[in-house]
């Protein structure tokens, strides 16, 4: 029986395998030394991610490689997104250490769950099969549910976790349902085969595929957090401990983006005309609702949650504006590049913004209201400047990276005759600018409420500054990252 068993090629999945084994190792380390040496687990987690980054770079071949019976793919897009994910998770670990320590939450579980979530993201990013996608989604989601509830004593966090879990389970159900229809119509779970079958389907299957597509888009919409699947975002962002919010708001966006590309572009490109319309509706309503609702928020985390909704909407605008010319991806590639660039720019700014909350929080005090940012310029001009950079980047004001992301998306819209949508998007950007400006106003124009010095470690100061300067410098030189995105997508799709 074992005669026809061929060992799969493990190389493409080496980062995942390594991360899994290292995470299990850290689990034991935590068990034995964790109680006495709290610093060990975060340090080892960072090391594990750096090792993964090293391996990812070294195993990058350039051309897509399928393995595990065509269930797993290693291409440049996945390598690039995985590297970005490591960077984001490392930043999250460094930002959140002090915060979690001050609350007695810096147990090993926190870091280990993040590593498992990272593994889930990596599987999502490299998935070439509907089941692999689902596996990744669930690994990520289950870790996230537990992370949100990590502060067991907080009723707010528990409530948020419960909400997240119920809605997340529903979304997983929708996604699975959609996948089952795809399987029913095409007879395959492999994305490449689905794409092939979809291009030569008979008329009867057309309805089933379209029906399945609707559910897929709903599942994607939930993962990205766009209207009308956005309900969990504000509650979870606000309820979760800020360090966890920081995590949810950053790296998983890369995975969700990868999932969108895999499902819609690789799998269902034949139906691009249909999903583009769907995404356009999701995008436009997200931009409108996200920006309008953000104005009314006084809680900074909630405001950023609505801002995240509008940003993901903006990203979808790019995906929705690809040029369609038969079954060929390449004319639409510029649009997907813009979307990817937008995600990178957004995650960079988002990391920094939530990092600011962690910077200002201390034991027994959550700096999550807008008023807590009062007079930051008097307390620490440097970090006020960093926060200013993050806010203006999110608002899409040049010279920061957020502007070029918006610019790239708008260019795609106008190029595909969606000029009215572009005008709509900029008008809501203007509305959005108001609430970012308000944060800057609070920091610079108001008098400080408390004058306690910022008590955070050197590592956090350093990484947050690097984060801020990166947002500024990538704004001055936007081409490099844009080219990277373009190259990664061109070689992958």
């Amino acid at each position, binding site marked *: 029986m074992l005669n026809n068993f061929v060992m799969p090629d493990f190389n493409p999945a080496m980062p995942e395998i390594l991360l899994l084994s290292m995470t299990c190792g850290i689990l034991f380390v935590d068990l034995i030394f964790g109680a006495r040496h709290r610093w060990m687990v975060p340090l080892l987690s960072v090391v594990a991610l750096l090792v993964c980054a090293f391996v990812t770079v070294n195993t990058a071949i350039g051309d897509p490689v399928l393995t595990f019976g065509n269930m797993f793919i290693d291409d440049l897009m996945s390598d690039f997104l995985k590297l970005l994910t490591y960077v984001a998770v490392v930043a999250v670990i460094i930002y959140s250490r002090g915060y979690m320590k001050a609350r007695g939450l810096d147990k090993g579980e926190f870091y280990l769950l993040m590593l498992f979530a990272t593994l889930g993201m990596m599987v999502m990013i490299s998935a070439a099969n509907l089941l692999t996608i689902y596996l990744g989604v669930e690994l990520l989601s289950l870790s996230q549910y537990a992370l949100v509830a990590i502060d067991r004593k907080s009723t707010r966090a528990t409530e948020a976790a419960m909400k997240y879990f119920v809605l997340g389970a529903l979304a997983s159900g929708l996604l699975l349902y959609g996948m089952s229809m795809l399987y029913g119509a095409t007879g395959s779970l492999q994305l490449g085969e689905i794409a092939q079958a979809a291009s030569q389907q008979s008329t009867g299957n057309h309805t089933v595929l379209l029906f399945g597509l609707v559910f897929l888009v709903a599942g994607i919409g939930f993962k990205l957090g766009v209207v009308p699947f956005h309900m969990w975002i504000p509650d979870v962002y606000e309820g979760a401990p800020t360090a966890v919010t920081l995590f949810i708001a950053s790296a998983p966006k890369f995975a969700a983006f990868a999932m969108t590309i895999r499902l819609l572009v690789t799998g269902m490109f034949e139906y691009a005309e249909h999903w583009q319309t769907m995404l356009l509706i999701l995008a436009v309503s997200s931009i409108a609702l996200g920006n309008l609702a953000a104005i009314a928020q006084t809680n900074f985390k909630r405001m950023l949650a609505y801002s995240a909704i509008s940003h993901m909407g903006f990203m979808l605008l790019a995906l929705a504006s690809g040029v369609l010319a038969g079954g060929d991806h390449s004319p639409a590639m*510029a649009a997907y590049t813009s979307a990817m660039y937008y995600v990178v720019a957004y995650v960079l700014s988002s990391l920094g913004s939530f990092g600011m909350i962690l910077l200002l929080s201390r034991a027994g005090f959550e700096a999550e209201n807008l008023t807590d940012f009062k007079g930051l310029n008097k307390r620490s001009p440097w970090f006020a400047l960093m926060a200013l950079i993050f806010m203006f980047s999110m608002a899409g004001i040049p*010279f920061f990276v957020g502007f070029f992301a918006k*610019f*790239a998306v708008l260019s795609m819209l106008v190029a595909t005759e969606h*000029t009215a949508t572009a005008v709509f998007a900029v008008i809501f950007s203007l509305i959005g600018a108001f609430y970012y400006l308000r944060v800057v*106003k609070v920091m610079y124009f108001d008098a400080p409420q408390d004058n306690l010095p910022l008590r955070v470690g050197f590592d956090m100061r350093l990484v947050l500054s690097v984060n801020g300067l990166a947002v500024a410098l990538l704004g001055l030189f*936007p*081409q490099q990252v844009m080219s990277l995105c373009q190259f990664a997508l061109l070689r992958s799709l």
Partner: protein
Amino acid sequence: MMSSHLLSFAIWVPIVGALPLLVFGASSRSVSRWFALAVAIAGLVVTLPLWTHFDSSSAAMQFVEQAPWIPSFNVQYFLGVDGISMPFILLNSFITVLVVLAGWQVIEDKQAQYMGAFLIMSGLMNGIFCALDGVLFYVFFESSLIPMYLIIGIWGGPNRVYAAIKFFLYTLMGSLLMLVAFIYLFAHSGSFNVLDWQQLQIPGKVQQLIFIAFLLSFAVKVPMWPVHTWLPDAHVEAPTGGSVVLAAIALKLGAYGFLRFSLPIVPDASHAMAPFVIGLSLIAVVYIGFVALVQADMKKLVAYSSISHMGFVTLGFFIFNSLGIEGALVQMISHGFVSAAMFLCIGVLYDRVHSRQIADYGGVINTMPKFGALFVFFAMANSGLPATSGFVGEFMVALGAVKFNFWTGFVAATTLIVGAAYTLWMVKRVVFGAVANRHVAKLSDIGGREFLVLGLLAACVLALGLYPFPLTEVMHASVDNLLRHVAISKL
């Protein structure tokens, strides 16, 4: 044509110089302000060769720098100046030096940040005047809002938050639509090169839409009636330096935009919409003039006077003759000096009495004779007295307007009366008469630093009034070239 990096220096010297101020400036007040002054003067010095090496016989872009910036979207780092933009770079760098001097003592809170913000602002505005790539222009245009927002909001008056946010959102509203128009032009030309856009054939309907997008953006910036309401708020609340930069430079950006974008890129729409713009300009000139007359606050009065003067500028552009456009350009430069001087004068009074109300003053000349003389001189220039720079521009535009249409010229010329009325009436109430109260009685005359600042401006105003030829000579070729462009239909 000289190829060099002069324009890059003009942009980046002040910006890079400001960074140490922002990072280390808090440590020593005296070192940081001398450093700021040194950077501002360096910023002015690097712009001087623009004037001396400028070839005024050519309408082509000079001191051109071109390098790819974002090849994915064919965006270039493309700089160059012609006779229209070059004088503004000098004006801007010159005003920055004055602003640093003017904030020498009066800014007590976070002075290094204050000066740093002005230096960054100065570099960004130089960038606006020399950017020849749409995205580069837009990036400078919009990022210059950030320092001004902070300047008004941090160092402004009691209602500063409202004024700062209003300023930001108003300007952003216009410029975002301009961005869409730029991207549209890119989608149809494959380039963000402004000079390429000027050759582009655009259908009439689209021209109208692009013109409206540009108009919204530039009209807010100028500002034209009825989108001018942010300006009095911003001026009144801004610190003296902020008002000076707003009036002297920031308002010119909108007017410059008309010349660089609206007229040459969509000439047919510009012709079609000219009556509308002329109408708005005349309303600004006459109606805002009367509004200025009734102001009780000196800064507000000068703010309205700025709107009225800028109405003259937009009028000069849209009558499409060289007298009008050159006159408007002279008027812009002159207004840069005069309004800066007016705000500095008001700043001098405000620093001593902490009031901007006309009613709180009277008989200032008795206690501040040197200041009184200069203030009266600038007031005369503001009302367009011959031999001051204010007269030259207004006279040229009025002549051009009469050539275009007698009644337009007639209405426009009333500004000479209304302008004289509100300015001189204010001066009469503030400067002349008996000493009004004990505050005025205690006033001390201006010191050496203030005298230097105002004296320099007075010299400029007088020089430009007596002999404007060097300035008009520089811009002549470029204006002629522009008019030729505007005359060709792009349908």
